């Protein structure tokens, strides 16, 4: 499972405070613990007004790159900001994100076409977030047409089927499952990503909903998640699910992660 560590995000109040105060130690610490927890990418989102965003993101990227070599997931709703910031990173990472909304893709895809950057593409367009699986898949097909046009291989694309809160859904995650499995069947080597915790908004004991969603989505073909890599329950469950899905010969990854203390309770001394 590809894990995009979500803990450096200005929409988290304590992180917003650190960003406002330019508390680099705080940002570094969050980068370090996520790296230690085996994150694949470190997401970096400023969540500040667009006028300050480029400068803020560059400062955050500096903090992260000072303590870890992990690639960064540059997270901004603004294609202009993404375009300006991504090349500031030392190594290719992940653009978070584009969609079929406006000219986002046409701005970003040509910039990364000849690079090793990966990109998250949301299944939304100018109509907003489509209500049906059929419509989301239509958006997905449009994304893939653009990818082809700009020469971006499926293996560099992370499709986000858009996870919405369970409490207002009428069919649980049936629609997500349909989108994920259809995408997975059409493009075996594409990545499918979800912001897992969106599923549990407005519900008590959110972690159970997050865990349940992750198992079911992985079963459908999800291979990456934007989540907290230091959440031991989630990590243990992810490793176990990969093994259960036959993606872990002899459970060696599971055992290895246990050995590394990624989800095991520390031994009582």
């Amino acid at each position, binding site marked *: 499972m590809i894990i995009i560590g979500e803990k450096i995000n200005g929409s988290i109040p304590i992180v917003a405070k650190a960003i406002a105060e330019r508390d680099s130690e705080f940002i570094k610490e969050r980068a370090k613990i996520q790296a230690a927890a085996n994150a694949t990418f470190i997401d970096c989102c400023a969540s500040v007004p667009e006028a300050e965003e480029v400068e803020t993101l560059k400062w955050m990227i500096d903090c992260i790159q000072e303590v870890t070599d992990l690639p960064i997931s540059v997270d901004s709703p603004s294609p202009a900001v993404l375009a300006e910031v991504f090349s500031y990173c030392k190594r290719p990472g992940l653009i978070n994100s584009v969609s079929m909304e406006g000219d986002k893709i046409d701005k970003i895809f040509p910039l990364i076409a000849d690079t090793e950057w990966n990109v998250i593409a949301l299944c939304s367009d100018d109509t907003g977030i489509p209500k049906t699986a059929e419509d989301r898949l239509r958006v997905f097909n449009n994304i893939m047409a653009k990818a082809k046009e700009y020469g971006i291989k499926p293996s560099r694309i992370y499709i986000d089927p858009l996870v919405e809160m369970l409490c207002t859904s009428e069919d649980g995650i049936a629609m997500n499952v349909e989108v994920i499995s259809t995408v997975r069947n059409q493009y075996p080597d594409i990545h499918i990503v979800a912001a897992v915790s969106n599923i549990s908004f407005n519900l008590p004991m959110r972690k159970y909903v997050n865990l349940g969603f992750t198992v079911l989505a992985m079963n459908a073909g999800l291979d990456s998640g934007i989540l907290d890599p230091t959440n031991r329950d989630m990590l243990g469950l992810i490793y176990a699910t990969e093994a259960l899905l036959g993606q872990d*010969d*002899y*459970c*060696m990854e599971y*055992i290895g992660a246990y050995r590394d203390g990624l989800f095991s309770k520390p031994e009582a001394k």
Partner: protein
Amino acid sequence: MSKIEEVAALVEKGKAKQIGAAVQSALDEGCDPVEILNKGMIDAMGIVGEKFKNNEIFVPEMLVAAKAMKVGVEVLKPHLASDATGALGKLIIATVAGDLHDIGKNLVAMMLESAGFEVIDLGVDVPADKIIAAVNENPDTKIVALSALLTTTMPAMRDTVSALAAQDFRKDIKIMVGGAPITQAFADEVGADGYSEDAASAATLAKSLV
């Protein structure tokens, strides 16, 4: 780290993908193939078995180590005398009649092979006469190892040991038994020469019987 220590470390970690190159590189450096086998592999598996007995590692870790050793031995084989890999002698292993379980038996077979036996695996649900025939075909057999995983197949194990005991070759072979319902007391009662409770101990036991 010497080349042989590298091989040993890869066996212990069960790195089947990397071990071939490491063995080759030890050979290229002029290491003695027998030394690579003994120090780099058999001793490493001994450590793995020890760790398993002490609950420091899990069954799959022991399995991948044995698998890695197998891959390494394939690279080594052309450089070894034909009998070097089964230096401790021939050992026949089977799950007794009526019992279809093979996971434990396979694990024991792997550990015995890793310990230096030439293992002849007759599979599962093996009637006594088939085991007797195999010993007759391989008169240099040193040990017959029998597995039973069910209380309902314990009688078949008893009958198999009795059938072996009635043969002329009984004095030339040792019989060891194991499996979930089997105990030392049961092994003594049916007349086996040894019992062990897990695959790693089975390797130690077999070595002590020859």
